């Protein structure tokens, strides 16, 4: 890269032009969604995929009210926030115990938890359906929150354990000499040091649970607690001709994810990368 400024500029300009073109191509499906979502209903019938040829919010209103996407947003929150919180609490404590506290059966217990990383969800999704039915947890917020949390626990525990393993041993030893209890060591000494990990895991788990499609599809058969993902899917099956409200529903489904992503871009990317590398 040690060529003169004059030589560097035009070469990089070429790269930028190419990259901007590729970015636009990559982002085109999103542009298309926004464009179709804001069309008038006549325009959708004639020219559904022409870009930005008319403007109206009627599709959004239809999707929100008739399509019940307003309710789906609320349900998505009710399914994602508790399950994510549960994963964070259990994984952080579990990861700490597996990394720092020797207890009988630790090895076996850890492999049991990690089994979830190895066995894909669909292996046991069918028996789980009947199990939930006999536990009367089918079609309940509690049941699906627990299932969503359990699908992410293996990764979360493994991920947090790696963070706790990286901390030096002298830390808890000196805290113990100072007379701190186990709980104090965990909360005051250890936890603040792994907060970046907790943050990454939170964003990662939140997005995984928000985007999860199969779990609510299988275990929430009625419309009562239907979230955005299955709501969009069933909307698609119900009236595939109405592209306008469908586009609006798609927009409503991806918008929270996009806002989160743009606001926390660095954390999201870091969460996924470190998750991949540590997992």
């Amino acid at each position, binding site marked *: 890269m040690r060529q003169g400024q004059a030589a560097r500029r035009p070469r990089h300009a070429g790269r930028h032009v190419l*990259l901007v073109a590729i970015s636009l191509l990559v982002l085109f499906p999103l542009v298309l969604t926004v464009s179709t979502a804001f069309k008038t209903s006549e325009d959708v019938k004639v020219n559904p995929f022409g870009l930005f040829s008319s403007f109206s919010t009627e599709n959004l209103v239809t999707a929100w009210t008739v399509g019940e996407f307003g309710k789906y947003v609320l349900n998505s929150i009710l399914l994602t926030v508790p399950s994510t919180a549960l994963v964070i609490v259990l994984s952080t404590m579990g990861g700490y115990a597996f990394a720092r506290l020797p207890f009988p059966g630790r090895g076996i217990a850890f492999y049991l938890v990690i089994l979830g990383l190895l066995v894909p969800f669909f292996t046991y999704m069918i028996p789980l359906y009947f199990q939930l039915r006999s536990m009367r947890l089918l079609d309940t917020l509690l049941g699906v929150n*627990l299932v969503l949390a359990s699908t992410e626990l*293996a990764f979360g525990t493994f991920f947090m354990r790696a963070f706790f393993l990286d901390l030096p041993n002298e830390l808890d030893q000196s805290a113990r000499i100072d007379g701190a209890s186990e709980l104090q060591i965990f909360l005051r000494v250890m936890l603040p040091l792994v907060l970046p990990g907790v943050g990454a895991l939170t964003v990662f788990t939140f997005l995984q649970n928000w985007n999860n499609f199969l779990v609510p599809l299988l275990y929430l058969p009625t419309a009562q607690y239907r979230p955005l993902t299955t709501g969009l899917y069933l909307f698609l099956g119900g009236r595939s001709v109405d592209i306008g409200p469908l586009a609006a529903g798609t927009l409503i489904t991806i918008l929270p994810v996009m806002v989160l992503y743009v606001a926390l*871009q660095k954390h999201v990317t870091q969460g996924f990368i470190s998750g*991949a590398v540590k997992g």
Partner: protein
Amino acid sequence: VTPLLLMVVVFLLFPMLNALYYVFVEFDGLDPSPPWVGLSNFKELVADPDVWAALKNNLIWIAVGTISPLVLGLGLALLVWPLERGSVWYRMAFFLPYVLPPVAIGVVWSWIYEPSRGWLNRALEAVGLGSVTTGWLGNPSTALYAVLGTAIWAAMGFVFVIILAALRNVNADLVDAARLDGANAGQRLRYVILPQIMPVFLMVATLTGGGPAGATDVLGTYAYKSAFQLNRISYGTTLALVITVMAVPVAIGMNRLQRKLSLQGMGA
């Protein structure tokens, strides 16, 4: 730890053991004491032509779905690598598809693949390739590749971000030295850059390995259909279990390899 273990046992271990029971009976979802049928579910599976068709599609999915995002992601990363500015914007744009809900992605791409008004066919017509236009998702010979295209679109950014991070650790002096010695761009990539990022490159390969959306999607879909749409609970479970048994040794091997590589890659 106790509540953690409790959740694992109830929602993971118990249904998994139940799966082992289901494969030896003929369960229809209602009968509390289903008849014991031994290995007949397995026999039916081996003789089922649909299973073999799904397996073939699955292998195509794994091969194409692993290699394409790697090549595209590497290409993009090499393009962005020398830039001092704008890399944040490109990273944001390319990675975004990876975090979006797959259902929503499916909806939008079905519009792009739409036969008469979809943008793909219109773009092909515009460049004079009107003869290859087709209903991409409706045509059985293109459907798999159309869905693969979408999956590659979503996975490419993931590869790109990781490889770009690895490229940042590449020794730029070596690249400059090679340039001064008269190495062209291809030679610099082959002999100077790739060896340095090889551990990370292989690691991403193992991660996307099994395809962007999971190795077993095609077969898994068939298992789902058998169980919940045709009420063949036991048959669907058998299928799912057989897929898992095939996939687990590969997964363990990949994981070993990946851990070794990530230690090298991060240590370097």
